[in-house]
């Protein structure tokens, strides 16, 4: 102890008598201060005392175009409602990427409690992989469908090719940009639309096949996802793009849309599925997760979807958005017997096995 005292005092005296080299000191201290400051900044929220009261969390995975709407509107609305009801604060831990990617992540074991997928096929993959014991989403309201959006045609400004419907996409000289059905969920919806819309308007199976083939003969560019194919279209490829109405509307509201929407006489409504992963939900979490899932079908949430360009499952609410176009003969995948039928019959049986071979190497890349 005494020893230490002597040591410290001598050190202090030496320090005091030393001529301080200020520039040197500053130059040495600056990086230390900077790194130290950076470190303090980084750990700040985790320091004891700084951290706020413990909050409950919900872990949600969703497909990409949902991100903005969920973060900006749906989550805050539920947080307010839950706090008003129980006094508890809820925080959302969320991740948004392509529906197929989200599905793969869940198969690999990410701790998702709730997921929203862009097509039921992905949900069915979860059942096959054993992540879900059965198609449990079908017990939810509307068979698990939380909102919809129709597939439309986006054309260049002033529609120079005078495209009015899918049939016009089969004309010679029209270039179509299409997402790749091997990877993109949106492309699968588009295929059903290109084929079945003919039959909805009274055409035969042969005429439907001819339209699907005609569109695909005109495909000039493909990309892995609906998002990527948009980028291709915007960078000048092709005359027409088949995509989600919601995406185009949200671009229009942000003032970023360069092109026009063409509403087909008949087209499919994509249906987005809510999946609840019971195996990732702790028993004490059930009240919160169940309340949130129920909230997704509440009028509040459904109105938010309409505001953001999705169509509500409650048809009456859709009148609130004047930008929604009119589609005289809409259909859904259930008109085709659900994805369990439509995937093997149309996507695999017709498109992959009959259309693709006819294109040879001259058509789609």
């Amino acid at each position: 102890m005494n020893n230490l005292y002597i040591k410290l005092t001598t050190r202090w005296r030496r320090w005091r008598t030393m001529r301080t080299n200020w520039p040197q000191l500053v130059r040495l201290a600056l990086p230390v201060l900077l790194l130290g400051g950076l470190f303090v900044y980084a750990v700040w929220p985790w320091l004891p005392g700084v951290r706020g009261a413990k909050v409950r969390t919900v872990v949600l995975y969703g497909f990409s175009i949902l991100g903005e709407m969920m973060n900006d509107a749906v989550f805050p609305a539920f947080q307010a409602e839950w706090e008003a009801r129980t006094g508890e604060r809820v925080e959302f831990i969320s991740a948004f990427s392509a529906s197929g990617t989200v599905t793969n992540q869940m198969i690999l074991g990410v701790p998702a409690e709730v997921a929203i997928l862009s097509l039921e096929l992905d949900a069915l993959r979860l059942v096959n992989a054993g992540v879900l014991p059965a198609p449990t989403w079908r017990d939810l309201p509307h068979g698990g469908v939380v909102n919809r959006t129709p597939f439309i045609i986006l054309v260049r400004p002033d529609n120079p090719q005078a495209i009015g419907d899918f049939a016009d996409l089969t004309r010679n000289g029209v270039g179509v940009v299409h997402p790749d059905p091997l990877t993109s969920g949106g492309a699968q919806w588009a295929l059903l639309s290109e084929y079945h819309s003919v039959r909805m308007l009274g055409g035969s199976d042969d005429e439907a096949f001819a339209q699907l083939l005609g569109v695909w003969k005109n495909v000039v560019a493909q990309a892995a996802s609906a998002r990527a194919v948009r980028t291709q279209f915007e960078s000048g490829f092709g005359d027409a793009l088949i995509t989600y109405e919601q995406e185009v509307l949200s671009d229009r509201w942000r003032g970023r849309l360069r092109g026009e929407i063409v509403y087909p006489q008949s087209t499919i409504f994509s249906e987005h599925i809510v999946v609840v992963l019971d195996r990732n939900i702790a028993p004490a979490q059930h009240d919160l997760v169940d309340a949130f899932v129920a909230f997704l079908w509440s009028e509040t949430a459904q109105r938010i979807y309409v505001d953001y360009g999705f169509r509500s499952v409650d048809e009456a609410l859709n009148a609130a958005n004047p930008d929604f176009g009119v589609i005289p003969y809409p259909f859904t995948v259930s008109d085709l017997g659900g994805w369990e039928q439509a995937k093997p019959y149309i996507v695999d049986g017709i498109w992959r096995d009959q259309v693709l071979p006819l294109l040879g190497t001259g058509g789609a890349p």
Partner: protein
Amino acid sequence: MNVTAKSKTTVLPPLLLILTLLPLLLMPLGAIFVFAGRAGLPGLIHTLSQPDAQFALRFSLLIAFGTAVVNGVLGTFAAYVLSKYRFRGRETLNVIVNLPVAIPTVVVGTSLLLLWGPIGLLGQFLDPLGIQPMFAPAGVLLAHLFVTFPYMLGAVKPVLDELETTYEEAAYTIGANRWQTFRYVILPALCGGLFSGLLLTFAHSLGEFGATVMVSGNLRLRTQTAPLYIFAQFEAGNIETANAVAAVLALTSFVIFMLLQRVTQQRNRRAS
């Protein structure tokens, strides 16, 4: 050193260098800042003060600090053993520890998932115990340790290889034990290498994407690092937001590199 005249100010070679670097390096870097600044300063501040952007930056910095510390120690240890000891399989081990540079980071992420993930080789035994390193900060750290391991080694090992054993032997003869030898003889010589190794590790960790995207689960406010945040924002079409965070990362790296470069230069000047 003082005898030679101050290097005369040449114009042509630097100008040539800058011209070549312009399209390769400088203009792309500039584009980040142009797009980040599109919404003006208030917009930039607003973007950066979002909780998820703040979290992503903090989380990235913490992981980078953690990675630098752990790999700083591990890498130095590995370099010491590989440089000072002769044993069978040394050459092979030397090649193996440098492999992470060549393996695509996505593959690193996948293999970590297949090892530690809930359905992985080891993970399936850990999962019932409630231990889940993947899709958690621990998983991100594991991925970064793997990916950045060779940087520390690469910076330290050459210095150790150069360091003559006579210094160490001299230390032993005057009664220094192994630790003292390391602390007072080897460590001071290593300073420069350690610095640049830590720096490279830190910077690399700050920008790591491929492995992180696989193992983190990309959860906002929980495991989303800054590069993942940038990618998510880019995918969602928020180019300004993405570039705002990218600009902060670039600026942080720049300042750290600048300052540490000055420090190492001073050390070298004093040493010589």
